[in-house]
């Protein structure tokens, strides 16, 4: 019994310790951002590895998600004679939910895990302490540019995902299933609101980008400097990132669209 309480206490302490460390880390990383103004090259390099290299998976997934939405939506709507509303269904689903959420999940898997592994390995091979030795602050040199790049990439990737998805739905709905093209677009334009749907989608993807990049960079920086520790940190990034995205999505959706 006493042992159980002791374990619980240790678990609680380490949980709060990590939580506190994570937030202090975030503050340090944010404090490192202004120094990037003098070295934009670092951010461009990271935008390449975080954003450009994620582009392929985002475009392909967006296309297929949109096509599946078109197919499934058509099959359901045709039962009500409402297949004209297919465009609205595809566009609203993508812009409000699927775009930001699926992009963030893929982003956590593709870019987040890479960030964690890279920083974790830097730590394991003592490159980070080497930098400190040379009076280079790793927070500014390594963490801050990756953080900023993730924050910038997410909304762009989510917008690409949604746009490609809508064209995927258009291809299936209009091209293959014979929905009227004019009705497809007019329904979309009638129901998708610039402020309510598109701005909120962008806000969602910004929040997700912030959360996923923070988790990824922190896990890497906080990893146990062994090969096992790095692999565990990478797994944690994907799992915690996905959980954070899904939980945040519920909160944001309730705030934006819900009437709770």
């Amino acid at each position, binding site marked *: 019994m006493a042992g159980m309480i002791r374990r619980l206490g240790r678990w609680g302490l380490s949980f709060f310790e990590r939580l506190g460390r994570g937030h202090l880390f975030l503050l340090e990383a944010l404090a490192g951002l202004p120094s990037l103004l003098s070295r934009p090259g670092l951010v461009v*390099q990271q935008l390449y590895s975080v954003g450009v290299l994620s582009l392929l998976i985002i475009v392909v997934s967006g296309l297929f998600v949109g096509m599946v939405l078109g197919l499934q939506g058509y099959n359901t709507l045709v039962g009500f004679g409402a297949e004209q509303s297919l465009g609205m269904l595809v566009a609203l689903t993508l812009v409000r939910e699927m775009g930001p959420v699926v992009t963030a999940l893929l982003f956590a898997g593709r870019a987040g895990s890479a960030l964690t592994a890279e920083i974790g390995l830097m730590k394991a091979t003592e490159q980070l302490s080497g930098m400190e030795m040379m009076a280079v602050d790793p927070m500014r040199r390594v963490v801050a540019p990756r953080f900023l790049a993730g924050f910038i990439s997410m909304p762009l990737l989510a*917008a690409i995902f949604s*746009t490609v998805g809508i064209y995927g739905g258009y291809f299936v709905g209009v091209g293959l299933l014979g929905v009227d093209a004019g009705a497809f677009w007019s329904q979309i*334009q009638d129901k998708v609101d*610039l402020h309510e749907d598109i701005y909120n989608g962008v806000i969602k993807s910004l929040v997700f980008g912030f959360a996923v990049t923070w988790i990824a960079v922190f896990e890497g920086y906080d990893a146990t400097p062994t090969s096992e520790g790095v692999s565990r940190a990478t797994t944690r990034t994907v799992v915690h990132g996905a959980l954070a995205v899904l939980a945040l999505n519920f909160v944001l959706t309730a705030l934006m669209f819900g009437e709770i």
Partner: protein
Amino acid sequence: MMQSKTVEIAVGIFVALGLGALFILAMQVSNLSNLGGDDGYEVRAGFDNIGGLKVRSPVTVAGVRVGRVAAIDYDDENYQAEVILRIDPRFDAFPLDTSASIFTSGLLGEQYVALEPGGDMEYLRDGDRITLTQSALVLEQLIGKFLFSQADKE
């Protein structure tokens, strides 16, 4: 490390693609293109009951959308709902005695304001008021009337 020029070009293309996608979402997908901004003129109409009419509901003439509901307010002098209709500047020739009714599109669709032009020689201008209005049909009232008419027959 890759040559920095290639990296920069790739990042530039990526950012341009992302912004382009946002632009398409804003222009092609959202209602920005048919909002028409703030131009157009406003006409008021008082209804006894607006049912489920909402701000941004369509305003149609002969089934063609000519504007949207800009605002809904309550007028506590006449005990009426005050609906402000914003009408596209292209459609500027509605006679003064145009009437407005609230209809439902389809069986379960949303409600909209239908205008029916009258025969007056003067046209509606910004700030004018439509006096001939017909309220939304509320299902409960219809059922109530029906029941009363049945009771009267007996």
